[in-house]
């Protein structure tokens, strides 16, 4: 934010020898830079939220930065085009019955306004791929520790009409609940430790559901027959409401859940309590009729980085 003053001073130095009209033009440029520079440079260093969550996972924060940057670009480009339309509409409103000049085309201008969108799209796509690779990066399947030695917590999420089941295979804990039944009337709760890599295995027991937590800036379908896999690294403790986003039948709007981010020690206490109250994996034997063949799936963009045991069905 200290940059605008530098812009102004550089404009001031060139002001001296100029003629009065040129001087005014320079002043205008200086004012323009002083106002414009924070906006433009601000876009590089500072990410306005534009109504979105800044993210409570490392993945969600990456996504947020991309969103914010794209939104800034969109507002600038869309705003300029909108102003151009307004300007044209006012400037060329009918003032007389004179026939305007009947020009049909201007090849240089047409090439220009083809090339500029190409450049914008190229830049956006570049940042999209970078972010996408970070968001989709996963530790190898069934890994217990990451390459840096940090522990990996595995949670298997099963969506069903109309609720969620959260299984912790390595901790022998299973939490389940239907619709709004759960802490605070917000559905079942998935407790996760902050600062650890959480490996999510997501599958549906019946129709397609959507796993979505607003503060994660992330959603993924729970598909029948296909196990989706993604990683979450929560960095803030707190309560984060989630909800099914894909229409799944009558009680779709009631299919809530919450994610509670806790410290690793609180997490250990929580698992012990859950086991003591009988919330173990044995509590919910999977009905045989509802176990279609499940294919493990990672997104193709990082399929090379993390080969899975079986490829997806499509």
């Amino acid at each position, binding site marked *: 934010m200290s940059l605008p003053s530098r812009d102004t001073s550089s404009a001031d130095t060139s002001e001296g020898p100029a003629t009065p009209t040129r001087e005014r033009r320079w002043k205008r440029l200086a004012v323009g830079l002083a106002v414009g520079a924070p906006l433009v440079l601000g876009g590089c260093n500072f990410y306005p939220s534009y109504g979105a969550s800044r993210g409570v996972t490392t993945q969600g924060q990456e996504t947020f930065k991309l969103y914010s940057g794209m939104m800034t670009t969109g507002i600038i480009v*869309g705003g300029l085009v909108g102003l151009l339309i307004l300007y044209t*509409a006012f400037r*060329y409103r009918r003032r007389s019955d004179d*026939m305007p000049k009947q020009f049909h085309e201007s090849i240089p201008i047409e090439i220009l306004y083809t090339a500029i969108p190409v450049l914008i799209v190229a830049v956006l796509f570049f940042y*999209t791929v970078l972010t996408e690779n970070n968001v989709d990066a996963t530790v190898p399947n069934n890994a217990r520790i990451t390459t840096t030695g940090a522990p990996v917590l595995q949670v298997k999420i099963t969506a069903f009409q109309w609720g969620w089941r959260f299984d912790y295979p390595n901790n022998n804990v299973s939490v389940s609940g239907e619709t709004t039944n759960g802490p605070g009337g917000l559905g079942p709760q998935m407790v996760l430790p902050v600062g650890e890599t959480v490996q999510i295995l997501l599958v549906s027991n019946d129709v397609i559901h*959507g796993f979505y937590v607003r503060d994660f800036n*992330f*959603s993924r379908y729970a598909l029948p027959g296909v196990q989706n896999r993604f990683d979450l690294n929560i960095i803030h403790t707190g309560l984060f409401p989630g909800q099914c986003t894909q*229409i799944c039948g009558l009680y779709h709007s009631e299919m809530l859940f919450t994610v509670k981010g806790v410290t690793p020690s609180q997490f250990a206490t929580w698992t012990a309590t859950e086991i003591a109250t009988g919330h173990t994996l044995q509590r919910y034997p999977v009905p045989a009729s509802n176990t279609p063949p499940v294919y493990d799936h990672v997104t193709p963009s990082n399929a090379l980085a993390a080969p899975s045991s079986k490829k997806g069905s499509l």
Partner: protein
Amino acid sequence: MTTTVETPDLIEPEEPGGPNGHGPGTHEHESEHAEHGPSGLLKWLTSTDHKVIGKSYMITSLVTFFISGAMALVIRAQLSNPSSSLVNFQTYNELFTMHGSLMLYLFAGPFAFGGLANYIVPLQVGAPDMAYPRLNALSYWLYLSGASMMTLSFVVAGGAASFGWVAYAPLSDSINSPGAGTDMWLMSLALTGFSAIFTGVNLVATIFYLRAPGMTMFRIPIFSWNMLVTGILILIAFPVLFGAVVMLFCDRHFGTHIYSVQGGGVPVLWQHLFWFFGHPEVYILALPYFGIVTDIIPVFSRKPLFGYRGMVFATMSIAALSTGVWAHHMFTTGVVLLPFFSLLSYLIAIPTGIKFFNWIGTMWGGQLSFQTPMLFSIGFLFAFLMGGVTGVLLASPPVDFMTHDTYFVVAHFHQVLIGTTVFAGFAGFYFWYPKMFGRMLNERLGKIHFWLLFIGFWVTFIPQYIVGLKGMPRRVADYLTSNGWTGLNQLSTVGAMVIGTSFLFFLFNLVHSWRKPVPAGDNPWDGGALEWFTSSPPPHHNFTHLPPIRSERPVWDYNHPEHHKDESHGDKRHREHEKETVGASS
């Protein structure tokens, strides 16, 4: 120089045994002479005239538009309160499913390619009718049966379909959606799908084979160009939908397991097939409306279209790209190749951007007058700009992850679709209504309609973007007070009611034009395409003679001979000279 003077270089129409004797400037009662056979209602029902079928299409699709719009108002009323019990969950699910289905399958497409295009394309290319008039009639009757079937599915046991207009398997299978409403929904898609395919065939054949002498491909008005490309897209997309629908029907009734996991099928296959239809469908809905705006802006700017060829190539590249982006609706399935579909989706922004600059370039340096059709076209530019910019955001998979199936997406596609089908669609309606009925619509009522719609539009959908970013999923019948979505939803509901009110002024305008007709004349807007050369409404078989066709706006050239070669001979003295020569020869 007036349009009614017969000049030697007028071309006689190709149609042998066509209507005799009335030149441009004749009016509706004369057109009756040329027709034979039944009269009255029977004539209307048995007609193969593209103008009658076009009007039938328009009336039917506007009826579905109003039914569907009323459903939207009920949906909005339900959402204005966190735990509203105006309708129950099942009814709510049926309402949003039918709202989407009626709007997309029965209004947006048929209004454009069945209604406006059916009426206008043969006129614009100088043809006496569509290439296959009986097939055209069949299209309409298939469409009417499909539309009735879908609308009537509300009254069968179990109610209408309730799985959203995209009908994702396995929610749409016989276990999760057992009712007859779903089967009626599927059959309606099959019927209206074939109606669309036949209309597509007709449009392509008409534009390829029935153009008037001199109407080369690069002299076809852009609306007809876009309808040609739309016709081709229909032929690519709708058969796939039909296949998908038939397979779903087999899954439901004949024990196949194409989309069911239990039998080794793949539920996501439905999404692939559906969106392989569904994304081209978005452009089948959008391209005709781009064409309408592209025809209107030059007329009200008193200038030729800027970058005609660029426009044609932009349309073609949008159509080509639209067949390769279907999986951007499936980014969150986790089973599609993200970078490929992301890149192709981004690329669509380029030809779309070209169109925007061509529209602006057309207005640039013109003499703009803001009658109702032009106002609606400008409204379209702003609506579609907003919808387009948010669309670019959604082409990015991570941003799609954070907004997928939330109200952000709902706001995005409503801005795109209302921008095209409503703003541009009604621009076309106001623009061509004088041609179709020989009478003008009231300007004052038209402007009230526009401004209420324009204000209501932003008040409805800007809050939806925000509430989507606050995490509100789509297709929910209620929400918690603690979500903090109430205020924004109420604002959105108020906007929707304003939109609803705006259409009362539209209906009143129609009534007004029938009770106190203001004759339109042949060419009330000083339009340039061939439809403005014939009478309003046009006689049976459309033309008795045609002007020479030397550009994409032959009627403008004919009415303004002094400006014909303006851009190549800018200097005024030369123009004056040319004017004298032309004046002497006629």
